[in-house]
């Protein structure tokens, strides 16, 4: 391709880092315009990790090597929050400012950090650096980092030949300063043990904090690869039958029947088929998939192999959010060990079935958890959702039939195959079968991931997490994440099933239960949620791109005591904006961007006094 490139040279170290990233195995069957372009994001990430930002030289080298037009590559680079096209410090600390961390002191932490270390790097003119100690560091506020059970949280990146990335929980300004100075050991606080660890009733979490997550032998000693062995015996059609009989519904938020999805992919005559595990867990308040990937990574690899067998997929991707370095490490180790033992690759377990997979890291974009945005991101395009139809089962990544499932959904399939679909369907309720992971955070005594059979009520879950902490009195509970709804203390007996929440006009979303005690001011929480959606909108469609701005502005006017035409007028404006986003946006992000706000305003009557209702 004849490209006009910038006149800029990459340094030797940038070239070496980019070359190393391009050695990654190429997905089977990606040809034509896809042949090289799918390596664009990994190459950009490699350049960023080497020097802390992406120089014009590194960028130009990537464009030339992958034959991507620079204007398009620039559009991709500037889409991701973790990629930086201007000089920046080698050490960067991303401090979570999202709702769960806000409920546990993030605002005070950030204010203190600002006094100690100066303004956030996105306010600092390009080229400026903040100095702490003998090396340059910068900090940035961050959306939810998925460490809500250890709020407040921070994510540290140190660029270099051996780049370091780590998530830190329970951070204080002193620990942050230690991390920024490079003393990571001082900043580190051990991960809390899974609250239910070892409980014999656990299914999805049974090995977490019980089996060694780095050992394939230990995984097998705890029942690992039993499901795949059975699957290879009974054949793909029987696997799909069991999954259909189990009535398993997707756990990513949309609750689509998994058996139907798999059946549709398996029947597509076009080849190859691809399998994608959506591990871009970024919904504020969600950390259940992290618990599985860090604590039981082999289970995901086995489940994906099984899913690929059932749906005749040739190649798989785990699309993992960029802020989960430990999950990356554990999964990469699991893949390498499984491959070494013939559990991935050619002729798996001597069955004649072949399948391999790789991890793709996101780079700071919530929207890339939308299934069609993942396809674009993997292909090396901007992570903008596609219009549906066509649906992924017909035309997904690289335009081929694609089965895409959430981590939790996939891991469920292991027990379905081991114990049969009907046995799975007997757990839970008629409309919601199996067990469900819930992410308890905010004001509960023991935050963490909890697994319960469907049918448990909100009260049951909060009691399981040790009851309400803080003042002990509930003001509100955010159910399902930023795209979910606020419910109040009157809703505690709501059964947390798909049908139960639907009847209460709520949602399970990704299983978030974030409790706020009555000392929490809700308006700043709403403002944060509005800011989140504005930051994370891809900008493609007008209702979401502008609507998320207009709703944040209306809340800001109310908060500043400057409502236009009174608070009631602002509320009707918000309702109008919200309805248009819900009705006319392309994807679920815009369609749910007003959901939590609407519930706080109307269900909890947040502005009741100001509107005289």
């Amino acid at each position: 391709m004849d490209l006009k490139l910038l006149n800029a040279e990459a340094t030797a170290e940038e070239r070496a880092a980019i070359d190393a990233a391009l050695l990654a195995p190429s997905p089977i069957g990606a040809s034509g315009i896809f042949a090289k372009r799918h390596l664009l994001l990994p190459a950009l990430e490699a350049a960023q990790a080497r020097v802390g930002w992406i120089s014009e030289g590194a960028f130009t080298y990537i464009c030339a090597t992958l034959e991507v037009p620079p204007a398009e590559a620039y559009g991709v680079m500037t889409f991701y929050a973790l990629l930086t096209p201007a000089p920046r410090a080698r050490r960067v600390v991303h401090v979570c400012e999202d709702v769960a961390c806000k409920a546990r002191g993030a605002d005070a932490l950030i204010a203190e950090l600002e006094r100690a270390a100066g303004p956030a790097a996105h306010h600092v003119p390009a080229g400026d650096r903040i100095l702490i100690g003998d090396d340059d560091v910068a900090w940035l506020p961050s959306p939810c980092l998925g460490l809500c059970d250890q709020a407040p949280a921070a994510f540290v990146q140190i660029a270099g030949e051996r780049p370091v990335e780590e998530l830190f929980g329970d951070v204080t300004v002193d620990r942050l300063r230690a991390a920024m100075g490079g003393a990571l050991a001082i900043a580190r606080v051990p991960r809390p043990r899974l609250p239910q660890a070892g409980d014999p009733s656990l299914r999805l979490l049974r090995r977490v904090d019980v089996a060694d997550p780095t050992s394939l032998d230990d995984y097998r000693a705890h029942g690992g690869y039993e499901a795949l062995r059975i699957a290879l015996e009974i054949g793909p059609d029987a696997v799909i039958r069991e999954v259909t009989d189990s009535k398993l519904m997707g756990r990513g938020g949309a609750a689509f029947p998994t058996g139907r999805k798999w059946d549709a992919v398996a029947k597509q005559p076009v080849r190859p088929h691809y399998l994608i595990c959506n591990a871009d867990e970024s919904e504020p308040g969600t950390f259940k998939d992290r618990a599985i990937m860090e604590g039981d990574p082999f289970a995901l690899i086995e489940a994906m192999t099984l899913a690929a067998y059932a749906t005749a997929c040739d190649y798989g991707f785990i699309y993992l959010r960029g802020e989960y370095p430990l999950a990356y490490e554990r999964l990469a180790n699991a893949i390498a060990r499984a491959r070494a033992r013939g559990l991935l690759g050619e002729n798996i377990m001597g069955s004649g079935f072949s399948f391999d997979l790789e991890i793709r890291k996101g780079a700071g974009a919530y929207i890339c958890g939308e299934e069609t945005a993942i396809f674009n991101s993997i292909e090396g395009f901007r992570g903008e959702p596609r219009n549906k139809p066509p649906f992924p089962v017909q035309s997904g990544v690289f335009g081929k039939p694609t089965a895409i499932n959430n981590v939790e959904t996939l891991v469920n399939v292991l027990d379905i195959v081991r114990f049969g679909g009907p046995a799975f369907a007997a757990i839970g309720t008629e409309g919601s079968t199996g067990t469900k992971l819930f992410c308890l955070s905010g004001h509960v005594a023991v935050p963490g991931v909890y697994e319960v059979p469907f049918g448990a009520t909100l009260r049951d879950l909060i009691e399981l997490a040790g009851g309400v902490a803080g003042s002990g009195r509930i003001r509100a509970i955010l159910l399902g994440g930023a795209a979910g709804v606020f419910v109040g203390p009157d809703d505690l007996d709501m059964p947390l099933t798909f049908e139960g929440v639907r009847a209460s006009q709520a949602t399970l979303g990704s299983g978030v239960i974030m409790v706020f005690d009555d000392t929490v001011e809700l308006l700043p929480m709403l403002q944060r949620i509005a800011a989140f959606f504005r930051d994370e909108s891809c900008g493609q469609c007008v209702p979401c791109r502008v609507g998320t701005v207009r709703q944040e502005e209306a809340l800001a006017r109310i908060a500043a005591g400057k409502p236009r035409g009174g608070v009631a007028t602002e509320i009707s404006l918000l309702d109008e904006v919200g309805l248009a986003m819900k009705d006319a946006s392309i994807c679920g992000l815009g369609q749910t961007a007003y959901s939590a706000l609407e519930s706080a305003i109307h269900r909890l009557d947040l502005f009741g006094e100001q509107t005289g209702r």
Partner: protein
Amino acid sequence: MISILPPKAPPRTVEFEIDGIPVRAPEGSTILDACRANAKQVPTLCFLDTLHPVNVCRVCVVEVEGSRVLVPSCSRKVEPGMKVRTDSERVRHSRKMVLEFLDSSVDLSTTPDVADWKAAYGCDSERYGPPAPLAPAGTRDHAHAGHHDAPDPDYRATVAQPVKVDNSLYVRAYEKCILCYKCVEACGTDFQNSFAIGVAGRGFAARISTEFAVALPESACVYCGNCIAVCPTGALMAKPEWDKRADGTWDESRQTQTDTICPYCGVGCTLTLHVQDNEILKATSPFDQTVTRGNLCIKGRFGWQYVQNRRQAEPTA
């Protein structure tokens, strides 16, 4: 001559309803095609016959029975038994809001039809507050994805920014850009394959940009001007038109359009010359012209000055 190919079956007809009236349309047509064939008014902004529909502006949304959300008529194909509503309360609400969202954040003063639509749908863009003061040049060009400054309760955010004039042929006034993706499509695989521009950034900070926002002469731009031809808002404008509008002498009522053939090469593109006061101000090509589909090259688009190289007054010594 006997063809070895089997005879092509005529497209099947799909029967469905628009606003309660039974209609038929060839299989594969979009709802918008069917609406236009049946004299139903549907506004569009990001749609153009000659480009792939990107369905991002959402002003053409319609209601389809059984669909949870509204659907973009420009790209949704008709299906048998479909029940489409083009003027329901939900449709009117979303269209009104989309128009308000655009009008309150973008300068639509040179976008055709918008004033009529705003009136028809009852838009009031002032309810979002007064527009924020103009940001310094480069602010939007270098916005960092995933971050923005807290909103100022006294103002509404807009995309206002200084106009980019970096070459003598055309200007880029991104204060008028609604991000319809048409210029990117025309510059990319739909037509020109130059890939000089793309969409950069994210959310409200998303913008049309060259790599690192370099000036056009440093980019891959070949000055075909096909982006100008498809721009629906006048954000991209040939320099003579821009200058004439700036000094208040642009007057379409005094203009004529004359079709001719481009004199440069053997392709024979149709040129439409826009003339005011016996002076050519711009050249376009008709979108329905089978050869050009509205596109030209730098010579056809901009190389007409020689026609009117009038003798300058003799310089006085």
